[in-house]
């Protein structure tokens, strides 16, 4: 079984407890306007193109059977242009490019191969650290996730799955059985807005979340706040209410929106999706934290 993986990041310190290796899965059913990892959305272009690395050698033009690469005789002389819409993903150009200016967004990897990389850092994991499956939506490739989690458990690793919750419910029980902690994205408590900004309804997400809780899974809710969108009372209320209704929720983490996926989107020819006016101030984040704390049942960890 091969998995479509965009990145394996060692020494991750923000994707669960301790030192972790985070495996980023390609593909996501959501289309969040603020996505930090646009390369993991399915159907997106298959190449990263970093113009700054390109030396204009033209090797990709010769290699591409579909004319996706071309050279600019005028303007930036000798510079190269890439049209993502013509690319069919044969990766001949990425092999030809000496400068790694074009690179595949994802690679197909075997779970055993992935685990080999993850295990390299076993000495750093200690009791708390381990593997985190992230993405994208890892549970879009549920079979692969299951295989990876099984291998992780065979090797005594702590397992974290980061999910947006929008997946086929039949996968939940086997995955939950091998997962020490879910980092569960709670995008928006307002159903209408959820649909508008992520492209899907939040109904399935909430249903899966409650089902995971019923299975006894430990859950850390995470919500990214963007000013003018979900940084408001209704969302915080519903976040607090949802968290309070879960028996195994260990906390809620509020993250501040940052136009982060922006440069990556550019590298994929998607244009910049970063919105400076969505960034909340430190004070707004602090207030949101306070509000949340006030509304939540005691026993849930204070938001950071």
């Amino acid at each position, binding site marked *: 079984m091969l998995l479509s993986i965009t990145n394996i990041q060692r020494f991750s310190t923000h994707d669960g407890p*301790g*030192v972790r290796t985070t495996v980023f899965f390609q593909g996501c059913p959501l289309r969040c306007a603020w996505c930090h990892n646009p390369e993991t959305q399915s159907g997106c272009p298959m190449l990263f193109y970093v113009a700054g690395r390109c030396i204009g050698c033209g*090797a990709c033009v010769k290699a591409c059977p579909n004319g996706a690469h071309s050279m600019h005789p005028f303007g930036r002389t000798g510079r190269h242009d890439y049209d993502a819409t013509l690319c069919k993903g044969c990766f001949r150009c990425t092999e030809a490019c000496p400068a790694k200016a074009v690179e595949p967004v994802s690679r197909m990897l075997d779970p055993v191969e992935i685990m080999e990389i993850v295990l*390299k850092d076993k000495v750093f994991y200690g009791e708390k650290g381990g593997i985190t499956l992230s993405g994208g939506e890892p549970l879009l490739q549920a079979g692969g996730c299951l295989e990876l989690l099984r291998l992780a458990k065979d090797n005594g690793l702590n397992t974290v799955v980061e999910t947006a919750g929008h997946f086929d419910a039949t996968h939940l029980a086997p995955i939950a059985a091998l997962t020490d902690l879910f980092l569960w994205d709670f995008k928006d408590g307002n159903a209408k807005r959820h649909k508008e900004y992520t492209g899907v309804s939040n109904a399935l997400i909430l249903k899966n979340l409650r089902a995971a809780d019923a299975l006894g899974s430990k859950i850390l809710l995470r919500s990214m706040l963007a000013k003018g969108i979900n940084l408001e009372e209704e969302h915080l209320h519903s976040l607090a209410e949802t968290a309070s209704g879960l028996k195994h929720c260990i906390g809620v983490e509020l993250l501040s929106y940052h136009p982060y996926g922006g440069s990556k989107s550019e590298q994929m020819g998607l244009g910049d999706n970063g919105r400076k006016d969505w960034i909340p101030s430190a004070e707004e984040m602090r207030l949101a934290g306070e509000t949340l704390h006030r509304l939540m049942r005691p026993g849930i960890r204070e938001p950071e």
Partner: protein
Amino acid sequence: MSLESPWNRMSLESPYKHMILESPWNRIHREPGGNNLEFYTAFNEKRPIRLNAQTREFAWESLHGRYGEESLRTPVVAVDDIIGFERMTEYGKYDAAIARIAEMAPIRICEFETVSGAATLGGAIDHVVPAFWRGGKLWDSVSHVTLGFGKVLETGIDGIAQELILRLADPALGAPQIEILESMRNTIGALRVWHKRYLEALARVKPAIHGNLIHVPFKPARHFHEAVQSLWFVFAFERLCGNWPGIGRIDEMLGGFLKRDLASGVLTLDEAREILAGFFIKGCEWIRRDIPEDCGDAHHYQNIVLSGMDVDGQDVTNEVTYLVLDIVEELGIGDFPVSVRIGGNTPEKLLTRMAEVIRHGGGIVAAYNEPLILKSLTEFGYSTAEARRFANDGCWEVQVPGKTHFGYYPFDSLKILLNDTLGLNGTPALFDDFGSLYAKYLADLKRAVEGIYRDTVRDRTGQLPGADWHWRTAIPCSAVSMLTEGCIESGLSYLGGGARYNVMSPHIGGAPDAGNSLYAIHKLVFEERKVSFSGLMAILQSNWEGQEALRQYVLNQYTYYGNDHDEADAFTCNVLNDFAGIVAELKGRCPILFPAGVSTFGRQIEWAPFRTAVPFGRRKGDILSSNTSPTPGTDSAGATAMIRSYCKADLSRQANGAALDVKLHHTAVQGENGVESLVALLKGFVALGGFFLQPDVVDATVLRLAQANPEDYKTLSVRVSGWNARFVTLGPEWQEMVIERTAQGV
């Protein structure tokens, strides 16, 4: 008297003779209160406040150069008027000069100090004995040495004086020995003079400190405050005489005093922290107000080593260990680089405290892997007890403190490959296979190391390594000899072979660059055959001109040392291990110990112009790897991968040390999990067999801001390459190098 020298500004009729410097600086520049002062941190929370407002103010003004500036106004004393100076023997001159320093150096007593004594002659900041004759220096001073301060606390200086008297009674002593031993006595005499001047000055203004100083450093210390005073006074005297000693294992030396005082209730932990903070703040008295652009100002080698086992194998970690961490955490003082010996017995709490300090940035706290170093030192030939005593010289080179004369000899292993093996500076060589290339490289390396050995030995003895052994006469350094075990016994000086251990260490630099170069040749020429050997040599000689596609290919398509890539790492590890083997063969040929070590200490900057383009795609003049760290720009797999690559070499064979610099991005260590992650890195480093880890937390954006507005970032310290420096005092290339290496772990 010639007036040409900038050092001659201090006249003989010094107005400083008995003066307490009472500067108006206090009233003009003082900030509203110590608690409003902010010491730079890379972390997203402020540094904790435990010290009182006055102590914090004292730290602030010291870190901002108040006392350094004062010292520069009184750089040296002149000895021109000493009758018959010219006709004196070298030791006679030295003793007269030290006596003059003791009599004339300005006395400084600061309002909020907890210990007294100050190295007020600014010339010492330039590593000379600050006593000049006809406007010129007489002797260089001594550094890279940790003196026997523990003995001062235990027996007092009087104990050492007594030892000298007894030794001098030996009728078998020769004249040179007597002269050296008498010079040590005279140096102690000078210390008495200086001490008396402080007692006089302190009597009215600081009765408590006066009370301590009546007793120490001449008598053994009786309690914690006296012990800190004793240590500081002798340390300050050494620095007054121009020397830059390391401190060594401060928690082992002071822990017992504090324990007794806490138990008897004469002192609280908070009071002890204030006292000890005074020691650290006083240690910043050489920081200058202006910003000299250099390789950083904060490296006077006053190193501190914490924790680890004592001679009996017991963990020495105690309250002093934690107080030191409290102090550097709060004040961000990087002038005393703190290295903690960690390993099997290290309390979890200590690792956590280290991580909490490290995350603020400044690179102040580094880690030794104790089990590996003990193995390394005993395999090298030290007894178990001696090995357990290890501290360092002032940077991180391992030595037995208080009994080691140390020097190191850095060389560029990349240049040897490029010039001697590949002939890139002349007619290029030709090799048909990798094996013969590597064999030639090892032969060239061997020749270089043997040359260093020969030169070192000849330098110290005037002879080649052989059976008939004696030391060459060296410049006087009695202030150092008197605190170095072996010198009194032998009647020889520190520089003249008197120390128990005489250690000269060849340090390989550029090993990762040599490894990467060999790897690139192996892949490109012998494996993939993309270019012929002579073709590649021609390309390198023309600095990759017109070969951008191939250059990009070797830069990007191969993985180099530092990414946990076994194949690539093997090349660098082989260079390191083979170097250690070459050095080991020279063992035992003479009484000079010759342990292998790895360092550049920033020399990669001065070496750059003398290297040609390299096979792994970098051009002539590029600044390459530091210490045992990956070449900048070649590592992208993060801190854990880098540590793993580094640990693949058998670092225990580098008995003098091999440092890895890891710069972590500030966001990687934020939050509660940041501390746990740092602890995990430290533990992994130990488990994998690392030697010395210098972690730093930096924010490249802030470093850029500091470049633009140096005035606003005077307290921002960074780990450079074995020491810390205030970032703004680094020259442009150094600043770029630090910024370039800030990306790991993101």
